Every structure is written in C-alpha cells, then in structure tokens.
C-alpha cells in the first residue's frame, strides 16, 4: 500500500507536472531549456489549470463539487501532460530530421528539455565543494521540515480546509475551524491551493495533513531553489564559478532570514505548504526570474547579451510563462494576485525608462490580464 501511495505521489507531483512543463517551454530557445525549467514551468501550468477547473466547480456544482473537480482535473491534467510529451517528441523528431540533412538548421529549436540543469563535467574542485555545501544546506532544510513541527494558527484554516475537502468531497461549504456549514466562502474560494493539496491527497490516498506537513516541503523547497538557480545562473553567466556561492548565500538567507515572523524566508521554512508561502517564495521569485529573462539584454555585452540577441524569437515563451505565473499567484492567495501586478508594474516602469520604450508598459499590462480578470471576479463575487 505504501509503495502504491509513493508511486502515485511521484506520478502526480513529479511526472505529470514535468510532462505539462514540456508544453510552454516549446516556445523558449534551446539555451533556456533544461530539466529544472521544464519542472518549474510544469507547476506554472498545473496550478492555473487546477484553478480553471476548480472555480467553476465551486460556483456551479451544488453537491459534492470536489468529486466533479477531481474527474475534470484528472482528465485535463492527463490530456495536457500527454500533449506536452507528444509535442516534445514531435519537435524532437523534426529537429533530428533537420540536423541530419539540412545545413540550414540553426539550432534555434535544439531540444534541451531533458538536459541536466547543471554541468558537473569541467567543474573545479572548489566549485564541487561549494555545490556540496549548498546541497548539504538544502538536505538540512528538508530534514528539519520532516522532523520539526512548526506551530501556526493559520493551519487550523488552511490545512483543515484541505482535509475537509478530501473527507467531505465538498469545497468551501464547511467551516474549516468548526465544521459548521456555511454559505460559499468567497474570500478564500478563489485561492484554491488547499483544493490542489486535497486533490493530491485524494489521488495518493494520503491524509491531507500528512501530505501538507511532511511531504509537500520535499517538493516546494527544491522548487523554490530551482527558481533561484535559474536566477543565479543568469546573473553569473559571465562568471559561472560564482553560481554555487550565490546558491549557498540564498540557502543561508532562508535559514537565517527568520528576523521576524513576517519575512518570506520565515514563511518558506515554517509554513512551506500554505498558499501565502508558495506565493512569496515561488511566485514572486519566479516573476523576478522571468522579468530578468525578458528585460535583461546585458546591454549587448557578455554571454548573456549575445545569447539574448540570438533568441529574440523566444520572447513569446517568456511572456507566456509570466502570464502563467500571474495565474499561479491567484491560485496561492488573492493578495499576491494583486501584489504581483505591483511588482511587474515597478519593473516595467524602470525598464520603459531605461529603454525609452513605452511598449514595455503595454506588454506588461497584457501579461497582467489574468490578474485583472481574477480581481474583477473577486469583486463581483464579493458584491
């Protein structure tokens, strides 16, 4: 039984998101793609898809809405993952054909989706030691996540919401604190991450509280570091030897960032499974990462600049991922769906000034359309 649950977890938390991630990274250039990017992109597809299925079920299905959600989300998730794999194979075949016969093949479509995120060959001993140190810190964080329990009052709402959903098969109609019935809880019902947790719990047959407290940190902590890795990789493109140190400092900041109960670092390691934490430590860094990719031209200098010049065509993929990140923000918490607009607006403003291009603000505005739709829906349901 434990083996079946384990396989089911691997399938729903690793395999399906990875296959889904193959879909949007099609529109990224080869040098951007690696296994970590695909995996992160997978969650940027899976969570919005969960929202698109869950919210109509909450609003329009009267009885046992979670059952309906499970059926539809399973079907759509499998279709999306299958589409990701099929398109990956199609691209692969097409590129192989071009590579074997045509001199005109430019390498633009080179498939690196399964390329390891890091290249161990050619790494100095010092670099290897620094990577070991970094992985040691991450393992320590995972060990602590499993062996320590952190008390947080919000779990009485957040985790209980997942468990109520799993056990009652209804969504947002039962008060998680007491169990009393209620009219639809609009305030929380648009941030559906607890439902996603309940879904994984249902599919794997694991109690939602065990899943949230003891298993999800093993997914969410590495997921955040994958985003930091991509940021660090980009920032240290000219001096790759500094990448492991960048990661070590990031890991230390997470462990020692508990300067108050409010910091995103505190949330990261004490409330890892909550939507607020996922928003602050996955969505916001992913937004910074994508904005960096989109706007940082390297001023035409260095490797990053040259690479970017060669891949203008892959911008669409980055904007698509940014849109998906905005949708993911709404999955986690309605507040960050709003705050992410502020972040994107601030960056777009400075980039528009830097490049003297007003069109940047327009494009950024389009990327925030999902947030606008979300906010309108939120206000509409509140009135």
């Amino acid at each position, binding site marked *: 039984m434990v083996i079946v649950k384990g396989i089911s977890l691997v399938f729903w938390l690793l395999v399906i998101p990875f296959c889904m991630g193959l879909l949007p990274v099609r529109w990224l250039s080869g040098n951007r793609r690696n296994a970590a990017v695909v995996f992160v992109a997978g969650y940027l597809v899976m969570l919005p898809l969960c929202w698109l299925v869950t919210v109509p079920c909450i609003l329009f299905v009267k009885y046992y809405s979670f059952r309906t959600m499970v059926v539809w989300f399973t079907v759509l998730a499998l279709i999306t993952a299958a589409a990701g794999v099929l398109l990956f194979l199609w691209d692969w075949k097409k590129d192989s054909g071009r590579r074997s016969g045509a001199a005109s093949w430019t390498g633009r479509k080179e498939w690196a989706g399964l390329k390891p995120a890091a290249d161990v060959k050619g790494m100095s001993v010092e670099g290897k030691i620094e990577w070991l140190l970094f992985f040691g810190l991450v393992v320590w964080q995972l060990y602590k996540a*499993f*062996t*320590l*329990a*952190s*008390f947080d*009052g919000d779990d*009485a709402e957040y*985790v209980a919401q997942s468990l*109520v959903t799993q*056990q009652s098969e209804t969504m947002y109609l039962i*008060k*998680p*604190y*007491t*169990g*009393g019935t209620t009219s639809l809880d609009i305030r929380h019902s648009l941030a559906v991450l607890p439902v996603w947790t309940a879904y994984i719990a249902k599919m794997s047959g694991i109690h939602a*509280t065990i899943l949230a*407290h*003891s298993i999800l940190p093993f997914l969410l902590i590495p997921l955040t570091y994958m985003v*930091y890795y991509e*940021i660090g990789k980009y*920032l*240290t493109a000219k*001096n790759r030897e500094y990448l492991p*140190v*960048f990661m070590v*400092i*990031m890991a*230390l*900041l*997470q*462990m*020692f*960032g*508990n*300067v*108050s*109960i*409010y*910091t995103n*670092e*505190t949330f990261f*390691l*004490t409330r890892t499974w909550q939507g607020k934490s996922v928003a602050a430590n996955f969505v*916001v860094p992913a937004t910074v990462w994508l*904005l960096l990719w989109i*706007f*940082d031209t390297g*001023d035409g*200098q260095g490797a990053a600049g040259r690479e970017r010049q060669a891949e203008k065509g892959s911008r669409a993929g980055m904007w698509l991922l940014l849109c998906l990140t905005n949708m993911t923000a709404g999955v986690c918490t309605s*507040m960050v769906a*709003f*705050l992410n607009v*502020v972040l994107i607006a*601030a960056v777009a*403003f*400075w*980039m528009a000034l*830097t490049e003297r291009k007003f069109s940047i603000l327009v494009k950024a505005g389009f990327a925030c359309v999902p947030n606008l739709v979300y906010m309108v829906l939120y206000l509409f349901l509140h009135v």
Partner: protein
Amino acid sequence: MESVVIFKNYVGGRYLIVLFALALVYLLFAEKNRHRRAMFVYMPVSLLLGFFFPVTRKAFVRLMGDGDTYYRMLWLVPMGIVIAYGSVKFAGFVCGKCGQAGPWMKRLTLVLLCMAVAFGGTYVYASQYMSKAENPYHIPQKVIDICDVIAPEEGEERIWAVFPTDLVYFVRQYDTDIQLLYGREMVEPKWQYAEPVHTVMNHPATIDIEELLKLTRERNCTYIVLPNNKGVSAKPEDYGLELLDTIEGYPIYYDPVAARLMHAG
C-alpha cells in the same frame, strides 16, 4: 508612521537589513548593466518608497480590507537576491583587485559574507514555534489520542465536541468528523469573538460545569474535553457525564443526556 512601525517589525532589529542596504548601494555603483541596475536597485528602492508612502497603505487597506497584512508588500522587494548578487559581485571585485592573492581574498570575502548572513539573521529552527514532530501529521500526539477516543466510526454521524483552547487548532487537522462548538477564530484574542461556551471554558481558574452543560446540551454537543490545568465547579459525573478516559491530564467526557436530547429532538 504606521508603515515605519510595520517595517521595523518586519526587519526585526537584526542586521540583515543593513546587509541588504549595503548590497543595494554597492550595486548602484558597481552594476554597469543598466537593466540589472533597474531591476535590483531602482525597483527595490521604488517599492520601498512606495511602502512608506501613506497613500499606498491607505489604498492597500481599501482594496484588501485589512491593514494587518500590509507587511506583505515587502515580499515584493527581492532582498535575498539583492544580497546574494551583491555579495558575489563584490567578491569578484575583491578578487580582481588583489592580484595573485585574489582567489584567496575572494574566498575570505565570501566566508565573511556568509558569516554576516548567519550572524545578522536569526536561525529559523531556533524559533519558539518549532518543536520536535511527534508524528507525520505534525500535530501534538495527545490531540490524536483524544480524537481517536471520541471520533465516530465509519458511516456514523459526525459529532460535536468541546476542546480546551490550546487544542482547538489541531483537532480538525486530524479528523473533520469531529465538529467543534468553537474554533480558532473564536479563541484568538485579536479577533475579539465572544463565544459563550468558550467564555466558560476559558475561565482562568474554574470551569462552571452547570453553565457549560446548559450551553453544550442546547447545541447537541456529546463530547467534552476539559483542560488539564483548571479546576471545576462541580464533579461532572454528578451532572450525568461519563468519563471515557484521561489523556495527558485532559479528562474526556461523554454526555449521554445531550445524546438523548439530540435523538429526541
């Protein structure tokens, strides 16, 4: 002024914020890539200025209907990335300036910066909110043991129960077939929720059993878990309660009178 207080509470009087400010200033002068300067200097500074601007807070409260969460604006400032990026960039600068000794000076700089992060912050696992996990649920074992005593069997109706304040947070994270007369939202002092049963249970010294049962029987509550550190006004058994078990000092009672009333009504 409120924003200043929120900011002070956020940074917690530790030196990590100084490290962030130093990284910001360093990147302002050392970062030649104007896009990165915009991203990691101008953007964070403008967000911070926006945070302190009183109108921003008013707009936030108006939109979110809640000023207590205004600190979350600070999540948008990529403090960690700025510190890490500023640090490796500074180490590279030191390396370049020190000639043959450069690599060693770079290592020394990075070690010192890592130490600055560690000593300038607070170790999360030393937090008062952290404790050894007693089970994979990460909730106190005593709650699980108590719930196992009172939880309905498969196919049976859900039950209503009363738990001491310190346990209500965890009960429904373990079993949602146990419904509570009052939950977390009614026990947090900041929400100032006056719930009559909780008022009786939360008496600092003695629980008035007669008053408690009057209220619980009105609401079909069949299980009562009393605190392990308070007295009672009378023996619960004298009022028809049956003691099922006592776990870590918490007496667990079944109320057959409430059950009879429930089935009769």
